[in-house]
């Protein structure tokens, strides 16, 4: 069963993160890196991608003629996807365990952030396409 684990945050939340000390950031990323290695070795990690910062996001709609209409303005409260993990696991409980590990990632001073991670099953039968 494939699940996506989504880490989201508002622009304000991202600014808070940017104020973390260098050593706190390093400890946080070491946690993520170790978790990724562990999931890879267990054969559970399908994909993990970080996204560029919310400032680089655009919203695109088709105009009447099908031409893209591009806008860069989002509501203050909008949650942006910051990164995702796709895992292939035997049960939803295992997906929740992995999400809890992400949630427990250390924040300032090493205390767990306990950030919420959205977990949803992937619908597609085929997860990986050639060229990834």
């Amino acid at each position: 069963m494939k699940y996506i684990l989504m880490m989201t945050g508002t622009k304000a939340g991202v600014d808070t993160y940017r104020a973390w000390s260098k050593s706190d950031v390093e400890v946080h990323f070491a946690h993520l890196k170790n978790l990724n290695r562990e999931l890879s070795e267990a054969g559970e990690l399908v994909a993990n991608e970080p996204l560029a910062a919310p400032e680089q996001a655009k919203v695109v709609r088709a105009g009447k003629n099908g031409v893209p209409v591009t806008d860069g303005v989002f509501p203050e409260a909008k949650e942006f996807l910051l990164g995702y993990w796709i895992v292939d696991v035997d049960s939803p409980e295992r997906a929740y365990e992995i999400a809890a590990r992400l949630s427990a990632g250390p924040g300032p001073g090493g205390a767990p952030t306990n950030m919420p991670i959205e977990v949803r099953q992937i619908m597609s039968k085929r997860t990986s396409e050639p060229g990834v």
Partner: protein
Amino acid sequence: MKYILMMNTMKAGQGVPGWPKKDLQAHVAFMRNFAKELRESGELALAEGLTFPDQAKLVRAGTDGMPITDGVFPEGKEFLAGFSLIDVDTPERAYAIAARASAAPGPGGAPLNMPIEVRPMASGPPPEML
């Protein structure tokens, strides 16, 4: 340049849209054909559809590190319905592809003109991770 195209079109608690079956089928057929076209042009890296928001869970670590699972989300929260990762030469090409997806057919075959969020992928892990 890798971009992610996100369809943040679903709302909390939503399941399969209540469209006529043939409209749902036409929508899915459009998305499949479009993915096929992008795969053939070498621009599609990954395309995924997610299950509906009524199956989403929010997970946090408890004080003991065990998962605390919740299924209640704010009314206004946007949910990701699906996403594509594309590899293109310019942002304009990413926006053109997003506009095609935006115009996917909805009820009665009319274009949805739904908003598609487009963002570059981080070009690699942040330097802190390396």
